[in-house]
């Protein structure tokens, strides 16, 4: 039997948290190093999977690194893991962010043992969502992720943390309830929970209309992505979460929504997706422009970055429901790219707040003198976010727009693509204005003696920059993989 790579990737964070839990009266340093070692091991294994992944034409539509064990025979549920071109980039993204989230949390003083336990559980549950090929297992991980995130926000957060944490949990649970109804109706219709077998579900007598199942699932994912008007949990949760939780929330957790849309909504119900695509691409354009417009009004640095995610996730929705090979590739690349860019932006906001103890844009200014390294990296992250060529943001958005504009299967997609492109102009507006208000202008006396990034922080933020540049300069490193996952979906959609 082959080495069970995916189980190992999933289990390493869990073993890590058990080790941390069992350490008797540990030193803070021991806890952090343990968390780091297990996160790194998980990342190293996912890189190994990435290198071993078969990108050739023979691999199209094939699930790789598959593991399948009977789990609940009564309902035909399996412990079924596997990756293809869609999920592998998300797995890499999560393990990468997992390592950096530990580094970002290096200064945590409050109850570090519990903190790193929750952080590792969060990582494991998100990885589970991306690796699962069984609907029940998928749903289990989807729900499991709420618990660590709730505690991370409500205990280690700031601002109105209890409000934001409970709002996040209830909002997501509403979506999950609909998703569960969707999963059950799929099961009653097809008698299977295998996400791969269910592709292109076509039965004469469905339990409820296919479009109803499609929307039950879609709403759950649309809350997570998020899509206007289901986005208002996001700015609260992102703003009040501790830095590492914000990094994972924006970086990996939102992608569960986009991934679910492609894997379950589009793949299982290609016909329904095609039918409602015009509506959804219109909603995507609204999300992009509305999100960007509201971002421009934010006074809190962290809230500003949080709102920008609404706008950027609109591109994902546009790419997914433009339903062309190129647009879907762009959407998956955009998910990865947004993960590392916004992850870095939140890490930078955390650093600025850590050092200057100020997040209100009206009270910030002139910090470029005090923190030269931070200003450079923050600017790189900002420019990547607005899609500067050479960064992953450009590659992803460009591919998404080209693919959406040239899509032939969705009516009116050209108009909505053009509208979406204007989002880039607004992004340039809020990013550059934000950088100007935080870092430029006359240096303020109250920030004298504010330190720059230390060595641990530098390792962390430079890793982000390296990833952004790598994907920006050579996007094929990912698009080769994504292509293998997108092509079978295109065959289902028939474009």
């Amino acid at each position, binding site marked *: 039997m082959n080495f069970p790579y995916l189980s190992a990737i999933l289990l390493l964070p869990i073993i890590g948290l058990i080790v941390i839990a069992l350490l008797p009266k540990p030193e803070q340093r021991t806890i952090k190093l343990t968390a780091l070692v297990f996160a790194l091991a998980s990342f190293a294994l996912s890189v190994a999977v990435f290198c071993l992944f078969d990108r050739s034409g023979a691999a199209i539509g094939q699930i790789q690194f598959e593991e399948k064990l009977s789990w609940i025979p009564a309902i035909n549920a399996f412990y079924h893991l596997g990756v293809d071109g869609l999920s592998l980039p998300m797995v890499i993204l999560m393990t990468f962010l997992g390592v950096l989230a530990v580094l970002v949390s290096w200064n945590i003083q409050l109850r570090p043992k519990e903190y790193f336990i929750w952080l590792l559980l969060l990582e494991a549950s998100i990885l589970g969502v991306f690796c699962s090929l069984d609907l029940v297992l998928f749903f289990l991980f989807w729900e499991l992720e709420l618990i660590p995130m709730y505690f991370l926000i409500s205990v280690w957060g700031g601002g109105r943390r209890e409000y934001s944490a409970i709002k996040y949990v209830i909002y997501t649970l509403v979506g999950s309830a609909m998703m569960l109804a969707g999963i059950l109706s799929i099961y009653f219709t097809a008698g299977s929970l295998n996400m791969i077998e269910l592709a292109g579900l076509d039965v004469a007598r469905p339990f409820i209309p296919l479009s109803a199942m499609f929307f039950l699932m879609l709403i759950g994912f649309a809350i997570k992505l998020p899509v206007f*008007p289901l*986005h*208002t*949990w996001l700015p609260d949760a992102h703003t009040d979460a501790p830095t590492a939780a914000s990094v994972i929330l924006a970086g990996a957790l939102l992608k569960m929504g986009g991934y679910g849309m492609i894997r379950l909504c589009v793949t299982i119900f290609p016909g329904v997706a095609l039918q409602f695509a015009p509506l959804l691409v219109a909603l995507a354009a609204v999300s992009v422009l*509305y999100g960007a*417009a*509201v971002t*421009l*009004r934010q006074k809190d640095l962290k809230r500003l970055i949080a709102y920008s995610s609404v706008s950027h996730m609109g591109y994902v929705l546009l790419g997914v429901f433009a339903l062309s090979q190129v647009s879907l590739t762009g959407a998956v690349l955009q998910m990865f790219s947004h993960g590392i860019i916004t992850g870095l932006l939140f890490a930078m906001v955390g650093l600025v707040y850590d050092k200057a103890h100020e997040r209100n844009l009206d009270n910030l200014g002139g910090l470029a003198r005090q923190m030269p390294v931070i200003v450079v990296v923050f600017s790189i992250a900002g420019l990547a976010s607005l899609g500067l060529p050479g960064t992953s943001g450009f590659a992803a958005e460009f591919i998404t727009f080209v693919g959406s504009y040239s899509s032939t299967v969705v009516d009116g997609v050209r108009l909505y693509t053009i509208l979406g492109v204007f989002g880039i102009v607004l992004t340039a507006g809020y990013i550059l204005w934000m950088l100007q208000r935080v870092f430029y202008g006359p240096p303020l006396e109250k920030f004298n003696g504010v330190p720059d990034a230390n060595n641990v922080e530098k390792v962390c933020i430079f890793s982000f920059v390296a990833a952004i540049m790598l994907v920006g300069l050579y996007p094929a490193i990912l698009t080769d993989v994504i292509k293998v996952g997108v092509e079978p979906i295109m065959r289902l959609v028939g474009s």
Partner: protein
Amino acid sequence: MLTHPLPLISLLLAGLGIFLAYAMYGAKWLSAEAVGRVFKPLHTLFYRKYWFDELYERVIVVRVLVDGIFAALSIFDSRVVDGAVNGVARGTNEASGVMRRAQTGQLQVYGIAIAIGVIAIAVCFYLFG
């Protein structure tokens, strides 16, 4: 042969402009400042580029977009979109506050409710079934 005099006129005007520019800045026959003073309002208009920069910056970007439409959307976002979410939560909370009054714990009240229910079902069966 030209069919219309207009192109000729514009050509002539352009030529004059080039000559005027040469006279003022090249050969310096005329002082640019002096000409500017004579045609003060026109000079200011051209010098400020018809105030297009100000129009974009102050009116379109700040007034119309950021402080106008975007501000309105921002208020819409917190009051209407988020307000609806919080409203659902408050509605649930208040509705449960009302409904809990029905749970008095008095078995007689529950008995009456059950009796009314049974009669209602019986009547329905008699009428429709």
